[in-house]
């Protein structure tokens, strides 16, 4: 088991290298570069431009540039962003935190709502609760994320109850201290994007929870537990639920991964300064170091999500854990 997990970890390295190489290649194929937009600026001389390009290694072929980048990256230095003039790593940490907060909030909402609803729907199969949940799940799965996001945006604007963009109000720009009002302000900004992001995974988890629990409720050991006269709550909670929740652990890891890439659309709709939005900005300004770093980072996150899914599964199921 541990060798398998270790192999999985090792397996990530060539993929990350491959992704960085692919991104470098693609960035080199883009017409022009970061400094192209300065070419028409009369205040900047040709010599200055050549100098700037040389400094960013933009005068060299892409594989040489990749070599320079890799040499620094191996030492943990992702270079300076051409656009923001600060280290790429600083920028990414800042934006990653925002994406992480968004994804985590969506994850919490999705699971905390989906699990109880799924259990409720399974226990009260064919009741109005079950039908209502089926309806919600159907809508959640069939409305595309972008439409849901745009609807939420319109709702926020029309009602005026929620802010339409950003992580916090403008008055906190440049303010260092934190107080309760600021935290509340952030939560207020977080609510709608997180709800929209949670919606689609919520529906899937709920349906999965319901069908798993229905399967285990039909199992022989549940019938046996009932025959022994145990209370229904004990039967469901202790005997059925524990086994029903197992397959969901895989979904947990994958939903984490899905949320991170799903956040891309939501971030751009709600102007949420996360990793997805940063990538789009970097692509628009052709800030190649930033593009490579964000794409590699997003890939890494996706793989870590899948890895966590495997770990959780191994932890919960001895049959998998003991298999070499």
């Amino acid at each position: 088991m541990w060798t398998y997990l270790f192999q999985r970890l090792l397996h990530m390295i060539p993929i990350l290298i491959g992704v960085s190489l692919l991104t470098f290649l693609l960035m080199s194929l883009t017409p022009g570069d970061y400094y192209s937009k300065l070419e028409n600026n009369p205040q900047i001389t040709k010599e200055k431009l050549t100098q700037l390009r040389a400094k960013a290694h933009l005068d060299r072929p892409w594989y040489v540039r990749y070599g320079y980048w890799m040499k620094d990256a191996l030492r943990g230095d992702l270079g300076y962003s051409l656009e923001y003039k600060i280290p790429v790593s600083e920028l990414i940490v800042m934006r990653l935190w925002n994406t992480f907060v968004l994804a985590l909030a969506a994850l919490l909402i999705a699971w905390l709502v989906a699990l109880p609803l799924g259990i409720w729907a399974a226990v009260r199969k064919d009741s109005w609760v079950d039908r209502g949940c089926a309806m919600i799940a159907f809508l959640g799965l069939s409305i595309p994320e972008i439409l849901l996001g745009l609807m939420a945006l319109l709702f926020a604007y029309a009602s005026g109850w929620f802010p339409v963009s950003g992580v916090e109000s403008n008055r906190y720009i440049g303010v260092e201290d934190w107080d309760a009002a600021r935290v509340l302000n952030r939560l207020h900004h977080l609510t709608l994007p997180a709800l929209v992001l949670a919606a689609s995974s919520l529906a899937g988890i709920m349906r999965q929870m319901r069908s798993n629990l229905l399967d285990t409720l039909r199992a022989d050991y549940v019938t046996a537990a009932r025959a022994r006269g145990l209370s229904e709550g004990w039967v469901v909670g202790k005997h059925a639920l524990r086994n029903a929740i197992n397959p969901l652990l895989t979904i947990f890891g994958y939903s984490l991964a899905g949320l991170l890439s799903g956040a891309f659309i939501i971030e751009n709709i709600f102007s949420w300064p996360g990793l997805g939005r940063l990538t789009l900005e970097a692509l628009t300004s052709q800030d190649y170091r930033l593009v490579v770093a964000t794409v590699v980072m997003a890939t890494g996150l996706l793989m870590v999500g899948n890895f966590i899914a495997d770990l959780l599964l191994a932890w919960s199921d001895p049959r998998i854990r003991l298999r070499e």
Partner: protein
Amino acid sequence: MSESISSTNPSPTRQPRTPWQLFWHRLRQRRIALVGGVILVVLYGTALLAGFVAPHNYDREDRTRFFHPPVRPHFEGLRLVVPRSVPLEIEGKQFAYKLDREDSMPLRFFVTGDEYKLIGLIPARLHFFGTADANYPVHLLGTDQLGRDVFSRLLYGSQISLSIGLVGIALTFTIGMLVGGISGYYGGLVDNGIMRLCELIMSVPGLYLILTLRATFPPDLSSTRVYLLIVVILSFIGWASMARVIRGMTLSLRERQYVLAARALGQSDLRIIIRHILPNTFSYVIVAATLSVPYYILGEVILSYLAVGIQEPQASWGLMLKDAYSNYQHLQQFPWLLAPGAAIFVTVLAFNFLGDGLRDAADTKA
């Protein structure tokens, strides 16, 4: 009682039904799948004949009627009539119109109007309906910020948005099936190399890769080129997961007796893959294709929404949504601008209905 049972039993002489007949029989029992199918036929039909069904051209601007509200033709006696629309000049209130029901003009069918090309080839001027008088406009879904008919743009936009799904699927599945078949059939080094490439593509979160690929081309391409580009980009990413599944199926199919027989007869490898192995994956492929069409439609919507997709003055559902959302105030005042959102929703839903039905019908074990 016994008579009715014996009469419903199939007579022993009846021909056994082919798998396709069984499939069709099971599909017909699923009403919701049929509803989805009918909606799609209507949508694709109107998209094909967009120029004819649409009363105006997609770029026809009425400079006197920006943000005109939807006009509903009403009955006057037995005739459908359209009220006269008079732009009002009111202080402090923009885009106000008076619909004068007293002064109306009959809605006529098969009228001549803007010139267009039917199915992109045949020049024509005939429109399904219209009034042929700009003072009596038939804006079924109102007009946008440039005074263009939203209903007409929706129809022209559906040509792009709907066909992107089909073209994308065709490309993705051709590549996916061929590469998957080759990978599974040959195994070994070829298989290993192809599968690593698939993993690489699949490990990057979709939209990050899509936008990076988009950035490798100039931002201001003509709409035709952007259209092709979107299809190619989405297919470039989509084929990987398809190839993996087909490879898995091929691995078991290549051990079948009829494949061995074909090999013994000396058929070429490519012929065996295409003629004997891939047809056995069709039932899976058709279902998967139907369920993944929305992915392409939404891909166009997202790219156009992020301003790197279809460009003005062409119409696509994503571009129309982007325009609608460029000004929240307008969006609130003129809610008909959200029509493309509804169109996207209905289309995606219809594909999901049909796909689910196809999946159930193709599942012979159930």
